[in-house]
């Protein structure tokens, strides 16, 4: 397995585990740790953790809301002016989680570099 895959899986795994104990920003911690341990190069520093947590949040939110016929997701979608479209809301959720994580990934790598 290449570094990207390992980084991806480890971010995913840590984000999932840490969120059981910590608030929403645990996904940022997951990326920080992962990027510190397995630093990537160039844009992938951001993109890999971004994809990992986007995927995690999309799956988690989809599992929760599909089990309840998207009752609340439809309403929150109205709140965010996304029509009554829960799919869009799930995607936005993934983007927000991914964005925070990706940026934490960049920071994780810079920590590593500064300590070298």
């Amino acid at each position: 397995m290449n570094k990207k895959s390992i980084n991806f899986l480890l971010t995913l795994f840590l984000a999932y585990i840490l969120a059981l104990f910590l608030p929403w920003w645990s996904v940022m911690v997951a990326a920080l740790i992962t990027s510190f341990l397995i630093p990537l190069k160039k844009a992938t520093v951001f993109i890999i953790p971004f994809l990992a947590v986007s995927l995690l949040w999309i799956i988690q939110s989809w599992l929760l809301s599909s089990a309840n016929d998207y009752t609340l997701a439809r309403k929150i979608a109205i709140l965010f002016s996304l029509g009554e479209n829960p799919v869009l809301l799930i995607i936005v959720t993934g983007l927000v989680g991914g964005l925070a994580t990706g940026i934490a990934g960049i920071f994780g790598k810079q920590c590593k570099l500064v300590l070298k």
Partner: protein
Amino acid sequence: MKNIKFGFSLLFCIAIFYALNTKFGSLPPLGKFLSPTEGFWQNEVSESNTNNTISINGLSASVSVKYDVHLIPHIFAQNELDLYKAQGYITAKHRLWQMEFQTHASAGRLSEIFGETALDYDRQERRRGMGFGADNTIEKMKEDPEMISYLEAYRDGVNNFINQLQPKDYPVEYKLLDYKPEPWTTKKTALLLMYMTKMLAGGDSDLEYTNALRKFGKERFDLLFPDFFDVNDPVIPAETDWTTMNAKITETPQSEFPLDSITTVLNKPHPNNGSNNWAISGAKSYSGNPILANDPHLGLKLPSVWYVMQLATPNHNSFGATLPGALGIISGFNTHISWGETNATRDVLDWYKIEFKDESMKQYKYDGSWKNTSVRVEEIKIRNKETFIDSVTYTHHGPITFDATFKGKSDKEGYAMKWAGHIGGNNQRTFIDLNKSKNYDDYLNALKHYVAPAQNFVFASIQGDIAIWIQGQFPNKWKGQGKFLMDGSNPENDWQSYIPKGHNAHVKNPKRGFVSSANQHPVDESYPYYVFNDGYETYRNRVINDFFSSKEKFNIQDFKDLHNNNYNLKASELLPYVFKNMDTSTLTTQEKEIYNQIKSWDFNTDFNQIAPSIWASWWSNIYNLTWDEFEVEELVLKKPFTYQTIYMLKNNPQDAFMDIVDTPEKETSKDLFLIAFKETVKELLAWQTEHGDYYWKNYKATFVGHLLQGLPAFSRFNIPIGGDANTVNAASKNHGPSWRMIVEMTSPPTALGIYPGGQSGNPGSKYYDNFIDQWADGKYLELDFIQEPEATKGILFTQILTPNNE
């Protein structure tokens, strides 16, 4: 270089964390809110239907909570302390955010949630003396240690639930507004009762009337606002003999009302707050059992103001609608009796003009000397801002609501409020005792604690009694007292005494075989105490009473039909006169077409008709044109009531009020009908272009709005239901029958009920609004009055609350 990069990435990281963890305006903190493990996705869940066990501190024995298919909890406890603890726990489980929000609103604490935008509202509630009233309520309840112990049990139940919560479990509104629940207190129950008191007895028009008296003079005022309308079908049948009561009437002093001009008043409760209730005796009932019905008309809100429960111990078993935050059943039944309330709409709020000795407001003039004031310091916490300190001055009348620091005009004068809501009553005791009452005498004993908001308590028992008592603590006023602003320095203007509870108007087992109330005048002119018409209903009551006089026997279907009756008596009393007198010669073809549509109307305000929309618009235009004299800037005025308006249009068609001030011509009521009609046609056609056909359903567009100012995402719109504010089915745009109940006094009682909402307060639950369609359709839930705690039939799941003996 790498240090710079490090610095930038750190800043970037902090910035994104801050941006996603902070609420901006109405936008929730996005990271927190959208996180699947912490945010709203955790609320995307309907109540589980699996049995479970929860341990609760301080229970003395296990409590079994059985949920039926409607998610109505049936609570079986071994004693009352456990029962009310369980009620607190279960109510919080389903309605926590609402419970806290309503009590925050009552206490004037919304600035804590919304920031400075709510400050004016909060100051107003503080200056209305909401906290003062709640403190007095608690003080009064302390005379009844058992009651306090129940309040504490309820409090502990609520807090047990709150303490179990992780941030991810908070109701979604907390996440949206980014705050968290605080512990429940006994005072919050008092604040909830104050919230209801404000809603139902917090209105008055003294200051508007004062302006009108000055502007129009006494003779004209009395014509517009008579103490009795020319028709009166009172709550207590007119033939009732009061002479044996030996009433002591307060003598009218020779003082004058201060002629003032007032430019600001407190926010008023919704003018349609009211209700219907009625009960028929066994002799009038198809089965020989009395039948009782209630439908309180309140704002249509989500979560609903009501939460339905069954509350049982080995000694009593009650069922019905509760108010989240208060104990026991409020409108319901038990094994022996049933009861329900409508608003008594009495004037229990008066205003006094206060003259201070100087700007310090430390002393005010009273009985020829200077009397000391006191100060209640109100600390209003504001989100993201410094706390605002409002010092409210109190006189012996009550709080100085308006003074130089709040909407007042002068440093040396103020307006003090005297309100039954400030007296402090053990109202909670009335409900707890009604839950346990076995007969008429128990009901009477329960009522005697009741102070405010005054209600018409209807009653029926399995023994075959029916009754209605207009209960509350009413000042024994001199004739005319409290209609206008009074001089606060004259002791004769004080409330001199209260009407003895036994003298409150009531009737038991009347000859006519039924009792009813619909917020109309409680009595006729023969009742010895002064009761002035402060907005009594005049239509629903007559439809109800005519209905029960129309035939010999009534069954459950008749009750349902009456609840859902859309007959528009108001329109039927004006339109025939209009059709006869209005000059139609100038109507265009298009106008003529619309005119014919309403002319053929049968006065049923059904949702799929067109005529009710024409009527609604036409009436509103006639009313506003008639009272154009009341549209004055810088002066608060109240337009006359509907009944008197129609009376004037028909009986005084040439009256000077009929003239439209802005036109050179001299209009009569006939002219007003025509002008208003032409305006209505214009409005309806414009409406039609924008929205399509103006069927009543669409034109009225009834909605049930979320407590957060009708937040659209959590509200329900365009509900197909007929009726308007003056039909028995009083469903108007955002107001209407908030709980319909029918109870037949079989043994045990058989009951139906429905409300426009759902048992769950969670917008993510399928039980959030699942009753609305059935409610609009005039359908009911069969209320499963479970007699055996072991019952399993129709039970969705069971929660066992067990004592936690750690």
